[in-house]
């Protein structure tokens, strides 16, 4: 009995011994350059290498960020941006995925709509911003609409491609079992398409933030984009950098979150370098 108990315990210590330094090393590798960058940022203005008026020391920026958090101002702008980007993003999901599945499933629809989609996909969303503002005003609608527009294309095109690229052999194999077209769609086409669709979703997630910030910089009274331009006009440079840092972090979090979901949903796909 004692022996049986002793073995797993021994294994456990061994595993911890191997893993712990490995994790530390990974953390070190991932953060060392970032830390160095922050140090350069901190000391460049202090040593006169950069003009402190335009590039305040890193700690000043962190201080400004902290103040913005304490005053609730940051959260206010952050929430405004989140509501806009999430609404536009969610609307794009609801519209583009079903539409893409339909277009992908019917070759005729694909042929008819391909030229239009090619045209729109190659139109930079920001180039259309003035049009959106003309038609929808400078309120929330135009901002959500531009996010919706920017998110729609990657999701739509990836969904269409996903449905079109399902391995014909799998379709053949399923059809040989005499299943209905509806079942074929739900049980084969859809699951086979998930990874490619999700790549589109991840691209849209990154695009959503980018486009929104730009839109907020042009015409808005709140939001992270507004915070940045407003601070710049009032020469509150540390606050401006605090806003930029927040956006960078937000983009990172969104991308990481979507990547994680993508990996989870595509775990059946062979990992090329896994």
């Amino acid at each position, binding site marked *: 009995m004692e022996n049986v108990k002793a073995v797993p315990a021994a294994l456990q210590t061994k595993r911890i011994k191997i893993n712990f330094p490995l994790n530390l090393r990974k953390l070190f590798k991932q953060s060392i350059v970032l830390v160095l960058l922050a140090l350069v940022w901190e000391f460049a203005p202090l040593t006169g290498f950069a003009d402190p008026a335009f590039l305040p020391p890193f700690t000043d920026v962190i201080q400004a960020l902290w103040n913005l958090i304490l005053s609730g101002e940051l959260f206010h702008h952050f929430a405004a941006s989140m509501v806009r980007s999430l609404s536009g993003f969610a609307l794009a999901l609801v519209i583009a995925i079903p539409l893409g599945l339909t277009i992908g499933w019917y070759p005729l629809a694909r042929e008819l709509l391909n030229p239009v989609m090619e045209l729109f996909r190659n139109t930079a969303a920001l180039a259309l911003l003035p049009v959106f503002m003309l038609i929808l005003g400078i309120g929330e609608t135009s901002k959500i609409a531009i996010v919706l527009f920017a998110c729609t294309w990657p999701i739509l095109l990836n969904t269409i491609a996903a449905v079109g690229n399902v391995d014909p*052999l*799998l379709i*053949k*194999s*399923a*059809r*040989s*079992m*005499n*299943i209905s077209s509806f*079942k074929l769609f739900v*049980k*084969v086409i859809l*699951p*086979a398409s*998930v990874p490619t669709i999700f790549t589109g979703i991840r691209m849209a997630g990154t695009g959503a933030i980018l486009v929104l910030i730009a839109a907020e910089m042009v015409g808005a009274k709140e939001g992270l984009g507004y915070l940045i331009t407003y601070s710049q006009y009032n020469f509150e440079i540390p606050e401006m950098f605090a806003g930029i840092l927040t956006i960078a972090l937000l983009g990172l979090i969104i991308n990481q979150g979507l990547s994680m979901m993508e990996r989870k949903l595509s*775990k*059946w*796909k*062979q990992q090329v370098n896994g």
Partner: protein
Amino acid sequence: MPANEKIRFENVAKSFIVRDPKQKGATQSFTAVKDLSFTVKEGEFITLVGPSGCGKSTLLDLISGLSSPSSGRICMDGKEITGPGLDRGIVFQQYALFPWKTARGNIEFGLEAKGIPKHERKELAEHFLSLVGLSAFANRYPHELSGGMKQRVAIARSLAFNPDVLLMDEPFAALDAQTRETLQSELLRIWQKTKKTIIFITHGIDEAVYLGERVVVLTPGPGTVKKIVDIPLKHRLEDADIRSHPEFVKARHEVWNLLHELEYQGAYI
């Protein structure tokens, strides 16, 4: 219809519309198989050999009902085949497993198509996994299995929904010699146990002779039956060295001759 007849080919031909290389935009008809007439007996293990491109896979698509003949007809149990059905199970050369489903999930797919209730599906899947010796791998995804294992899962999947006829298109072609031999004898064992009619396509003469009670030799495209060779081997599984048995050697030689005769003729056409 004779009592023990399972599948009958009556003057089956299949042609495809292909682009005409001489005229831009024009099409022409290409005959893949023609004048196919033969019957497969109930419970028989029949193998089809023929050179690459002679229309073997085309023929299998026709039997499975995934495509229909341009002329002639194929009957199963006296009724013309008009579409796919679960009375026929197919094992493709490239496995064709659903990569997002585990080994068990793949087997359950066919059972679900048949409308078998959920709790029975799991049990049946487990049974057929053990039949092909993969009980321990039920929860693996296809990309986590070796080629031979994938092909076993594919065989188990086709057997699980209990078809009358098993159609196999060069299922062991991509495997190494050792795995192939193992799976060949496993397939024979399964055949003896389940009494299914098996139509097995191959381009391996050895494989055709070892597995088939009869070997159908096809001509190069357009494919048609050149000759059907009876293989009077009795104890394929019991005799470890059946491949050097005089009957085996004789049969293999005959099939070899038939195939090479065709090649020789082909060179002069």
